[in-house]
């Protein structure tokens, strides 16, 4: 493909990503402001000033502070305009800037999430490889039932179970805490289990489909060993469907982060949004959703860009989105 065509494609694709992000922001804004509600009251309650709910002075102050005197449309545009400049508004609960609130907590969530995804990918590929390498029906049946089994266990319950076993019974790892690698182990494992279950299901299905393809049978008839067939044909072709579903993994990770941080009381973005919902802290909810949507959009963008490198059948110029 020529470089110019690629540049055009890239620009178009990034434009699309930005558009999706804007739409996601707008959808969240509409949902959160769907029902007429007493925002001043929410803010005062979120700040622990219940007694000030009836005080007209306090209400007037809050209305001015959060721009609530504007019309809804004007309010939307001023909020959107601010968001474009990186200002995601002010938290009702903390009174501080949402962007910096998220930023201070993001490190903790990202480190655990990345480790969890890494662990999940390694485990998923190992399982999928084993499931297609072994021919014994029993071993395969056991391996193939693992993802279904672990997908059926709620993440929060996995967390509680791990906590019970490793912290309370064996006393090996702390049940809560923010610092030190030991506090990260249980959250990472908790998050990795559902993600790797999802991923290994996709990979097993992918590998299985490819294993039945005529070209695999042909390679077998030429005398290639099972291992070399898997290495040179199955892994690449069988991972392609999973690659297109990587957005699901983002969802799984976000889901896991919220639950794991709640269970293990870690001060990350997940716990931030859990508390923000409890306190009706709309700007924080909106900010975190925007962050998650951005992660999803970026991951999909990256997948789209590297996919043609792995699958020569897809070319950027031919693709009409």
């Amino acid at each position, binding site marked *: 493909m020529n470089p110019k065509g690629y540049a055009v494609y890239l620009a178009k694709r990034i434009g699309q990503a930005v558009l999706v992000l804007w739409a996601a922001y707008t959808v969240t804004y509409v949902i959160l402001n769907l029902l007429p509600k007493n925002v001043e009251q929410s803010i005062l309650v979120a700040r622990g000033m219940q007694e000030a709910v009836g005080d007209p002075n306090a209400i007037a102050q809050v209305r001015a502070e959060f721009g609530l005197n504007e019309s809804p449309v004007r309010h939307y545009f001023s909020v959107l305009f601010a968001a474009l400049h990186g200002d995601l508004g002010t938290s009702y609960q903390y009174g501080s800037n949402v962007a910096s609130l998220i930023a201070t907590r993001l490190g903790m969530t990202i480190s655990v999430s990345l480790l969890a995804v890494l662990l999940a990918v390694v485990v998923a590929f190992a399982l999928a490889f084993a499931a297609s390498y072994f021919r014994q029906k029993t071993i395969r049946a056991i391996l193939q039932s693992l993802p279904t089994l672990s997908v059926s266990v709620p993440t929060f319950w996995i967390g509680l179970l791990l906590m019970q076993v490793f912290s309370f019974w064996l006393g090996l790892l702390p049940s809560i805490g923010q610092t030190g690698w030991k506090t990260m182990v249980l959250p990472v494992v908790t998050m990795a289990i559902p993600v790797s279950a999802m991923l290994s299901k996709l990979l097993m299905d992918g590998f299985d489909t490819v294993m039945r393809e005529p070209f695999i*049978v*042909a390679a077998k*008839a030429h*005398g290639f060993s099972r291992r070399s067939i898997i290495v040179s044909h199955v892994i690449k072709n069988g991972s392609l469907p999973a690659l297109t579903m990587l957005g699901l993994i983002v969802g799984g990770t976000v889901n896991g982060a919220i639950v794991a941080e709640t269970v293990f009381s870690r001060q990350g973005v997940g716990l931030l949004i859990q508390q923000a919902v409890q306190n009706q802290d709309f700007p924080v909810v909106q900010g975190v959703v925007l962050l998650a949507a951005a992660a999803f959009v970026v991951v999909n963008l990256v997948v789209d860009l590297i996919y043609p490198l792995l*699958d*020569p059948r897809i070319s950027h110029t031919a693709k009409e989105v």
Partner: protein
Amino acid sequence: MSGIDNDIIGGNNAIGNGNNSGATIGGEPVIEVSHLSVTYHSARRDVTAVDDVTFTVRRGDTVGIVGESGSGKSTLVDTFLGILPQNADITGSFSLFGEDFTHAAEHEWRRVRGRILGFVPQDPRTNLDPTMTVGRQTEQIVRLRHPERSRQEARERVVELFTEVGIDRPELRYRQYPHELSGGLQQRVLIAQALASEPEIIVADEPTSALDVTVQKRILDVLESLVRKRGITLVMITHDLAVASDRTRRLLVIHNGRLVEQGDTRQVLDHPKESYTRHLLACAPAFQVRDNVLDDERGEHDGHENRAESVEPSDDGIAVNWNDVSKVYHERGGRGEAFNALDHVSLTARTGRTLAIVGESGSGKSTLLRLALALSAPTSGTVLVDGRNIHELHGRALRAERRNFQLVQQNPFDSLDPNYTVRKVIDEPLRSFGYGNRRRRSQRIAELLDRVSLPARLLDAKGSELSGGQCQRVAIARALAISPKILFLDEPVSALDVSVQSQILDLLKDLQESLGVTYVFVSHDLAVVAGLADDIAVLEHGSIVEHGSVEDVFGHPRNAYTKKLLDAIPGR
């Protein structure tokens, strides 16, 4: 081992062929099959696909295994290649190169892998890894056979092989991916890959179906010459008697998993001993061409009256008239190249007659049909069906007009809604055109079922419970339900087995004689339309290259392309 040899002789005698013809061709036995049965086990029932089959293939021979779909011939291939699924059970025995492989484990199979190879040209793309260049894939095979060769040497060998099988610009092709090659080139790559393994036996599985006839002939030629040059034993599995007759020296006829007849190809075809073989011969359309139209020296056909001499219909009105129609497709998004599916085509179908439109895939023949059915609109030109410009009609008016022309589609299984019973399928046009009350419709359905020779007990069966031929009969009944004047037939028999094909063609012939319907019959196969058509139009790249009566086209083809199509009919 000696016991097995005895079995083979016994088996041959049992079949009644004996060795009297003296199977002198070839050297030592390379495939020996003795009382082989293969049964598939599944939760619901066991299916015996191959039933007590005994035969021998000798080195250097060319053997055809002929049978209809479901006869068990594919199971035989899978058995020889050691790729039977796990739920298959084998009894009896078979050996390859003198070694028993009846229940061989994977590591034992590894020793003969590459010595006996399958060539599966049907849908060649699925036989190639889509994410690897065809050169790399072939190179892997070369290096597997000769691990001592460097990558550079292996690469040179691949280019050599590509040249040998007639791939143009082999260095360029080396770097291309399967999807960048045409179907014919993909098939050549498959042959090159087979040769890269330096096999002693090639098992070609249905090398002719799903291919355009001209491509099919070239591929068979390449395969045959290479096999002869290298002394490779060729086993050819096919449903097509004509191909087997042209290309093989020995013939095995399989029916319902049993070997019904075997011997020298010429002998089997000229003097078939078994009734099933005679039946197959009688049904094969290519042989009918010779019998019916060209009045070939081979006169012994049974009971097919000569269509070309049937009574002239008195009425010579025009049923369908394509007037200077063009159809241009644009690639999605409108920026891509325009594709001329039809280029200023004018054609008429005469009332009460059969117009056959013949061409290879992509020639525009289906587009012609879809225009006449108002399923798509022409870019320019008009289509008059029964005297009306149907593209001027819309909505309710168009639906009302549809009672004059109906359609029988190619894939009989797909043309019936899986949730519908036969009764409901045939009732659909009756209801939508307001044909009588429930009782009248019910009568009409029974009458139609009788017309297409289906038993009344099938009324409440669903499509999935019927055979391909039965589905097609239901589709014909549905098309005839509202007594249309014109019937469009879109490759109505190409998805069916040969014996079923001839039954459906006979049925169509009878129906036309009794109902006087006009047929517009689209096919890729000149042989199929030979017995039914009055007029033939040959289409190539969206233009009509030949048009005339069936006798003219077959007897004195003027166009080079038509001649090529005629030559490509196997068995001529």
